[in-house]
């Protein structure tokens, strides 16, 4: 009997000490596990800015932030030394983007190219996240309206109707940040063209874009963007746009430097109205500058 008792005590004491020998590290790791299950961590900075090169990325301007953007394209490199390899020429789009909420931003702009006005909204429908809510991709919808306001040339030609000047672009962006430094996105796009900007055959155009980002250091990344136009709806005069660029971040500014074969900086222009060819040397150097202003401070702070 006593031996049994001893055994019993020994076992119980072993068990109890074991039970309470759980140290702070164990407590902490179980707390950490709990919180990763309970919280949703959203993926940030899939791209550095709201644009890859000319087209939209999955990023939204943060709520309360006004982003003043200047996009600039010089002339074609193959115009030679007389044209200073394109630097004598320039087209520009100046615009303002504003983040209304976490998943909703708006923007307006004016381009010297075709004297166009444009406006867009970007709605983030799904956002890549891990934790409580696990979502592998970010999905955004970007409708763009653009108005070509060029006067008839020569002026004796009949003035086009307003309806002939207006074009619409509907774009979905499906993006994923695969690792800390690599992101990819696909952009199926439908364009309802205007009738005066480009020698079209059809008013409807379909394209699918692919774009990627690779970080090469904390502040520098390499970007690429390509849009493939479906042959059925592509104008015979048009080529597909390919742009390669570098993003450089310096505190409040982001500089995007790139080479592209497109002059236009509005969706319908660079996707469906590009006529330059990379293999002919119709390459343009360009840059985007973004400067953000905080209009509103973020909620629940100070």
């Amino acid at each position: 009997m006593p031996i049994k008792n001893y055994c019993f005590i020994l076992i119980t004491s072993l068990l109890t000490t074991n039970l309470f020998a759980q140290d702070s590290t164990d407590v902490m790791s179980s707390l950490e596990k709990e919180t990763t299950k309970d919280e949703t961590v959203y993926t940030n900075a899939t791209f550095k800015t709201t644009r890859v090169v000319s087209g939209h990325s999955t990023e939204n301007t943060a709520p309360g932030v006004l982003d003043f953007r200047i996009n600039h394209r010089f002339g074609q490199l193959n115009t030679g030394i007389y044209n200073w390899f394109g630097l004598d020429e320039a087209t520009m789009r100046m615009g303002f983007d504003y983040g209304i909420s976490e998943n909703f931003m708006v923007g307006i702009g004016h381009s010297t190219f075709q004297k166009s006005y444009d406006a867009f909204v970007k709605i983030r429908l799904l956002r890549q996240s891990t934790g409580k809510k696990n979502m592998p991709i970010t999905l955004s919808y970007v409708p763009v309206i653009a108005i070509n306001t060029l006067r008839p040339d020569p002026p004796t030609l009949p003035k086009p109707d307003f309806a002939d000047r207006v074009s619409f672009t509907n774009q979905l962006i499906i993006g994923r940040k695969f690792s800390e430094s690599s992101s990819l996105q696909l952009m199926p796009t439908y364009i309802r063209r205007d009738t005066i900007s480009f020698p079209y055959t059809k008013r409807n155009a379909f394209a699918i874009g692919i774009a990627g980002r690779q970080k090469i250091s904390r502040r520098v990344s390499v970007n690429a963007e390509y849009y493939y136009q479906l042959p059925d709806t592509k104008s015979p005069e048009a080529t597909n746009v390919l742009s390669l660029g570098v993003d450089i971040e310096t505190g409040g500014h982001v500089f995007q430097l790139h080479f592209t074969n497109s002059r236009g900086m509005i969706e319908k222009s660079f996707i469906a109205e590009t006529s330059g060819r990379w293999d002919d040397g119709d390459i343009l150097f360009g840059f985007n500058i973004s400067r953000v202003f905080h209009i509103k401070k973020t909620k629940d702070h100070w």
Partner: protein
Amino acid sequence: MKKVFFCLLVVLITNVNAYAQKYFTKNGYISFFSKAKLENIKADHNQVLSTLDIGTGDMQFSLLIKGFHFPKATMEEHFNEDYMESDKYPKATFKGKITNLAQIDFTKDGTYNATVSGDLTMHGVTKKNFSTSGTITIKDGKISANSKFNVLLKDHNIKIPKVMASNIAETIEITVTCSYPNKT
């Protein structure tokens, strides 16, 4: 005979129990403050995990870098992307011990000075034997801990580019306020 053993057992269990009093919180508060020539930056974190073992003096903290919130959205983005690299190093932790445990009476209301020493890890770099002081307050049996200390960015290999030197301080002041309502 049986009774004696039973008593022994009870003593044993309660003894072990008494030395295993671990408190924890999931809502600790940590803020940091950077005072530089051009701007002052403050960020708050309200979901700090912390444990305190009043038997051994073990004290631990853990937080997700992305949980720091800033008054400006771009500050938060730069903090995560450029400085803390929070995708690569998602957590900051402290694992240490109260070194003057004997001077703190957890059963009696009051405010006690406490010295804590241990390993502070952030941005993937651990600073061993990091020591700081603060206070432990007992009120109506409830424990809370407060501390204010400085962290040098260069100790954790966090680099500030020269152009940002007037915007971000080299030394960051950290404030910790945790109460421990839960017991394991």
